[in-house]
């Protein structure tokens, strides 16, 4: 039994009140007039007699009532001995030390390591401790040992990383360690700056029964200047047949002190090319645009850099760009390039489309090799071409088929998503309309929002009956329910068939606003085109498959710190990006290499703190459990236990009832 507000026991002095009442009450009654006090005066006055208690029952009831009420105000709680008694037994201590890059702010890291050393210094010979460095992940540095020297050595070499803070993985690691421990007392110590951004709710991080959590916050005054580059805008332009890049940096001041007279610099290929003055209001942002730079080569590296401040990790922002590559495609038609299609494909910068037109019998293997997509625009496909196209698709190529009145496909080549059937004439009566679009598909996803393109307004006067294949997906249907657009994966490539023409022979689609985005989305989808990311964030992974495996040379990843990470030929091709800077993925002969710019998570630069109790409460169970613990046995804080047990309520009721009994008893005694 313990008490949350033991100071109320001072009120126990109030227990003297009933005693005084008992002793003084009768003298306050009416004065008795007596003929003479001659004899009374002779009797020696014994004050001790006045203190004689006459009604022990009343006295007991009153004292008990007051004592119960005082106990209620002292907020008692029963401490269930779920864990070993405090102060008895050996301890299993897990020290979770935050090494996210925000710990580099000011002296946070020095204070954090000092706090960790304090924890280790408190260990007795029978105690064991584990050191876990955590940021977005958790790394066990030392596990269940009492060797303080090693702990100190690890702390000496540890330093803040580039990742953001995430408490959940660290708590899960700590939970697994203490769960395996056989020591009677299990404690988890979290040393961190407790940023709000690091905690996203409960996240399932629960500690086992009997574990106590001790948060140690190193959050200090955040009045030191701290600027961070939170993002870049990269605008491409073409000048004198050279592609140029205009970099605009967004700088945020997260402190309450304005920054003026600072500088921001742009570096390309490791050399400074531009320097701009910078002024940012407190809690505000500023954008700085640099002069355009020419993208001179593939994997063109650049960095925007701020001057040093309290937190340097967020002062630089890296990016990698390459000269944009067009999506190459071959349009197979009847000899005259279709006006609408070529015009549509000539528009667009990201990506550009490089289309060549061929007749059906003139399509060469070279054409297929250079093309990411082949468009069959209402042509009669021979069996030979069909087989070549089937092989092309199997190898990853994309095929777009416009099934006009002349379109044929040999039945023995099974690559189309649908069998092309007889034409349907809708020139008489109402024209067919396109409806029932599959907006979840990448081709039609841009048209999902209202007023983003209305396919139902496109009249279609004729179309071919399409019978979808087994593994095909119908992406759009005509109003009568006939399939209009059908897609199918075949090998590594995709085939998409449109049941009408791409000119105005059978429909008004080329003249409608939806035509251009439809064609662009379809070609991009079939070409498996994706925008190259100029940068990624620490904690993301690098897919090494972007660089093809060489015949003899092993692929290697060069980290920003200069380490070489060989990629196993067997197994996963994924590399976790844990450092800020440029990762290089090299293939055979260093000719086919790929560069990734990695930046820190700008959200980590926001040092807004969270109340550590919130994390503790979530990890230890919060407010459920009627007996002072969670259903799974995780102990609660004393306040939570007291709140759950509500002993004060019962004591208060008992005290009030006793006061009622006191009233009844005293009234009855007064009557007698």
């Amino acid at each position, binding site marked *: 039994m313990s008490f949350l507000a033991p100071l109320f026991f001072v009120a126990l002095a109030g227990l003297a009140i009933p005693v005084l009442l008992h002793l003084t009450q*009768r*003298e306050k*009654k*009416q*004065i*008795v*007039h*007596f*003929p*003479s*006090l*001659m*004899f*009374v*005066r*002779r*009797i020696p*006055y*014994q004050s001790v*007699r*006045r203190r*004689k208690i006459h009604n022990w029952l009343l006295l007991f009831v009153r004292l008990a009532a007051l004592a119960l009420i005082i106990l209620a105000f002292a907020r008692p709680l029963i401490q269930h001995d779920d864990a070993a008694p405090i102060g008895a037994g050996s301890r299993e201590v897990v020290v979770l030390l935050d090494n996210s890059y925000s710990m580099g702010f000011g002296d946070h890291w020095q204070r954090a390591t000092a706090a960790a050393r304090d924890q280790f210094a408190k260990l007795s010979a029978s105690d064991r401790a584990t050191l876990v460095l955590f940021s977005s992940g958790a790394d066990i540095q030392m596990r269940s040992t009492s060797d303080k020297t090693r702990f100190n050595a690890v702390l000496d070499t540890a330093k803040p990383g580039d990742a953001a803070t995430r408490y959940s993985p660290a708590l899960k690691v700590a939970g697994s360690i203490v769960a395996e421990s056989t020591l009677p007392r299990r404690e988890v110590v979290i040393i961190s700056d407790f940023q709000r951004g690091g905690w996203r709710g409960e996240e399932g991080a629960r500690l086992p029964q009997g574990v106590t959590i001790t948060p140690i916050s190193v959050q200090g005054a955040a009045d030191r200047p701290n600027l961070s580059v939170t993002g870049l805008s990269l605008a491409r332009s073409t000048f004198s047949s050279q592609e140029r890049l205009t970099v605009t940096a967004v700088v945020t001041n997260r402190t309450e002190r304005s920054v003026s007279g600072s500088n921001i610099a742009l570096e390309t290929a490791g050399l400074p090319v531009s320097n701009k003055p910078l002024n940012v209001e407190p809690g505000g942002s500023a954008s700085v645009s640099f002069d355009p730079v020419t993208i001179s080569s593939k994997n063109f590296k650049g960095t925007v850099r701020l001057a040093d401040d309290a937190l340097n990790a967020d002062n630089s922002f890296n990016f990698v760009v390459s000269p944009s590559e067009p999506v190459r495609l071959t349009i197979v038609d009847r000899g005259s390039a279709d006006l609408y299609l070529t015009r549509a494909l000539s528009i667009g910068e990201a990506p550009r489309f490089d289309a060549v037109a061929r007749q059906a019998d003139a399509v060469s293997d070279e054409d297929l090799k250079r093309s990411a997509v082949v468009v069959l625009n209402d042509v009669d496909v021979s069996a030979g071409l069909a087989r070549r196209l089937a092989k092309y698709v199997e190898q990853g190529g994309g095929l777009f088929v416009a099934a006009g009145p002349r379109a044929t496909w040999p039945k023995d080549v099974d690559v189309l998503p649908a069998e092309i059937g007889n034409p349907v004439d809708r020139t008489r009566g109402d024209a067919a309309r396109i409806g029932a679009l599959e907006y979840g598909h990448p081709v039609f996803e841009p048209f999902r929002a209202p007023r983003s393109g209305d396919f139902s307004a496109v009249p279609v006067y004729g179309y071919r009956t399409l019978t979808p294949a087994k593994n095909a997906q119908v992406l759009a249907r005509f109003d009568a329910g006939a399939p209009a657009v059908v897609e199918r994966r075949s090998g590594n490539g995709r085939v998409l068939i449109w049941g009408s023409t791409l000119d105005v022979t059978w429909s008004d689609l080329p003249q409608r606003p939806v035509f251009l985005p439809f064609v662009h989305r379809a070609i991009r989808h079939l070409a498996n085109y994706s925008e190259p990311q100029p940068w990624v964030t620490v904690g993301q992974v690098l897919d090494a498959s972007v660089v093809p495996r060489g015949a003899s040379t092993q692929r290697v990843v060069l980290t920003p710190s200069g380490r070489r990470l060989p990629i196993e030929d067997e197994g996963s091709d994924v590399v976790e990006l844990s450092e800020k800077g440029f990762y290089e993925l090299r293939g055979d002969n260093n000719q086919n290499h790929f560069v990734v710019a990695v930046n820190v998570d700008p959200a980590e630069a926001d040092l807004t703190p969270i109340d550590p109790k919130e994390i503790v409460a979530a990890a230890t169970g919060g407010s459920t459990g009627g007996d002072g613990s969670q259903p799974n046995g995780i102990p609660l804080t004393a306040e939570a236990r007291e709140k759950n047990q509500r002993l004060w309520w019962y004591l208060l009721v008992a005290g009030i009832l006793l006061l009622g009994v006191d009233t009844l008893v005293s009234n009855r005694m007064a009557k007698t």
Partner: protein
Amino acid sequence: MAQDFQAIPGARFMDPAVLARIGNLELVARAVVDGFINGLHKAPYFGASVDFAEHRGYVPGDDIRRMDWRLWARTDRYYIKEYEAESNMNFSVLLDCSKSMDYGSRGITKFDYARILTACLTNLVHHQRDRVGFVAFDTDVVEHVPPSAKHMETVLHVLDRLKPGRPGSLKGPLHKLAEHFGRRGVLVVISDFYDEPDAVLDAVSPLRFRGNDLIVFHIMDPTELEFGFNDAQPFEDLESGEQMPVVPEAFREEYRSLVKAHIDALAQSFSAVRVDYSMLNTTQPLDHALYRYLGGRAKMMKSR
């Protein structure tokens, strides 16, 4: 006329508290005394004071109206008839009307009891043709009715309007009165005697110096004797106004022993000086007091 009140036989046995409610002292006194006299139908005491005493020889100067002519006829000598000289005696009641007498716990105060007793005694004495007088005193003489055969009505009237109100003192007024009662008679002192026994005796004794017969009635309320209080309360002295806290449970036994010792000391002191002392509590019927009076009178007559 006394026969008119025989319709209240046994009034003398009535609870004094009931008598006190009647209000008319004369009526009460007659009812009590007549009943009492009827009960003493052949009492040897009645008329004792008018008996013939002796003859003596005539000396010049004697009132010839007291000459016994019959004896002169037989003996031819002059004799004077002498009767009991005090047969028509003076009878005075000295009533303490101090504030302490104004206390009663059983429906009648000590003062009312004393008034009824006074009225009864006066009435009784008046029946015997004695002269009745009355004195009320506290720290001084408050009322004074000289003894006279015709003062019965006056005494009752004075008694009726008498109110206790001031603190009392025995010594001053009684010493003053002792000098006043020059002629032998019967003096009845009625008081609660809240004073030391020696002081009481010192105050009362001078009343006897001139040959007066002295009867003392000590009036006490039952509560004064038993101290039957339960709750601890402050007590206030009726005369001095002094207050003091009292826990009756703790005081009771000691108080009772002190009161008993006081009464015993008074009885012993008065007995030593041949003063008839009677302790009456206000619940006792008046009959008891009348017997005490007449018994005391008889003893005095015999001893004389």
